[in-house]
């Protein structure tokens, strides 16, 4: 615990998930592992898009990671990606998108992996090991 709290890896993580329990788990795990200083929770893709768009002029406030759920009512993860693709480079360069989902559908995995914006496909639930793996693979800049 001590060791973990000493090194907080990232500034900000954005979690996009319609399920309140999953949002809670993500926030809690991120806090426990000191994965990020701040966790922003969005309950819909629209809300997440609005949040990101509002930060266009202050790129430093953009999240390092976006944990994106695929199946959400209304706008789903893929539709979010379509909209996100039209965003300015400033935003896209800063954020790393990880698809976080329970889907086993090969089409889903294929679709997520073939999308250049999606860096990785991760199965729920989010755990200590998975967060550690992410932080190993994407060392924080500062």
């Amino acid at each position, binding site marked *: 615990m001590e060791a973990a709290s000493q090194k907080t890896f990232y500034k900000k993580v954005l979690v996009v998930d319609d*399920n309140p*329990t999953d949002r809670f*788990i993500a926030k809690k*795990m991120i806090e426990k592992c000191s994965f990020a200083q701040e966790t922003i929770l969005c309950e819909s893709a629209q809300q997440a898009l609005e949040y990101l768009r509002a930060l266009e002029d202050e790129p430093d406030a953009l999240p390092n990671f976006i944990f994106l759920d695929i*199946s959400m009512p209304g706008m789903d993860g893929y539709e979010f990606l379509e909209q996100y693709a039209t965003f300015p480079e400033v935003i896209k360069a800063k954020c790393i998108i990880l698809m976080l989902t329970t889907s*086993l559908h090969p089409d889903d995995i294929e679709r997520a992996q073939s999308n250049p914006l999606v860096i990785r496909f991760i199965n*729920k639930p989010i755990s200590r*090991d998975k967060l550690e793996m992410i932080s190993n693979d994407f060392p924080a800049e500062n």
Partner: protein
Amino acid sequence: MQMKQKDENLDQSAHIAEFLSAIKTKSDRLANYFIFTFFAFGLFLATFYDTWQIAVGVGGLLLVAYFSAKMVLADSDLYQYVLSAVLGIFMAQFIYQMHGLFEMHFTAFLSSAILITYQKWKLQIPLLIIVIVHHALFAYMQYSGVGGIYFTQLDHMSLQTFIFHIVLVAAIFSVCGLWAYQFKKYSEMHIDLIFKKKEIENMELKRANYELDHFVYSASHDLRAPLNSMLGLIEIAKDETEEDHTLEYLEALKGNAERLDTFICDILDYSRNLRTDVSNDSISYKELLNDIEQNLKFMGDNSRSVDFITAIRGDSPVFSDKSRLNNILNNLISNAIRYQDTEKKNPFVKIEIDILEDETHIVISDNGIGIPEESQPKIYDMFYRASNKAVGSGLGLYIAKEALNKLGGQIKVTSKVGEGTAFYIQIPNRQIIKI
């Protein structure tokens, strides 16, 4: 989809070709009977006016003509036209043998009817030509005084009678030709109808299949989503308590939830293997094993990690069904991890892949707990579990074997309790099979 359509069309034309060849074989057999009967009839007629030379000579020549044409022109239908002509000449032979007995003309009608069996109206043409030429020539020759023609017993035949004769013959031949044509059209229509019906049924089946597929995926997702939320919460709860009992309960809860999750995934795999077509993907075993290793990292109790030893030999291009292959390897490797021997210091799973040109050999061995000899024949049975300590669904090896069957592969096992297990798999290269 377009490919499928093409396949179906090909299938249909193949079916029609097969049907036509069946008609041909059957008709050829009938033709053999008739042509020998005609020859024998000629011999019988020879007894009346002692025309043995004609019966054997002309009749024999006709037999030779037909059968040699059939042998030489086996690939084409031309011999059938030869048959038509041969039957016409037989008629001329019979008329001569019976010294112009009028009733012998009826053999032409018989021949015309025989030819219907081939379901080709054009076969009437040679017969008709021979009848016309024969009648015109021989009638002309007899009435102009040439001796020994024996075309008719009538003293005189007017042009009017001759025309009636020929027109009637032509009418009968045309009717026979029409029947032949209609038979063929009807058969084709029938086949067409059957195929249309099959196509509709196929489409309905595909739709039902798609809907079921969709349902299974949605249902498994909807079952797994809350289950995974529960697993996440258990993880958090475990983190926040020091209470031994609570930790124990949470651990048990986690084990059960994971078991349920595995079970849902296995059912999904089972259903997917059963209903999806085998695809033909380019396979990179290196990538496949990497993905599996990544996925299995977080499997079971993470207190001990199992060493992955991989060796891939051979560089022939491999084509197989990626999803099924992944499933097979995943099941076998996860078993090796699941049934690791806690007594041993360094548990490992070793995956050796030998890629040959037309098939791939895979050996997956471990130093796990092993499978008792009496259980070995039953490990591929549905819901069979060799160990009661096991947390599996009892579907893993069953699914792996079923998937392997679909790929045309084979699996063998050797195992010794306390020493370890080795699975030997052989999978044919699909690209080679296709050619």
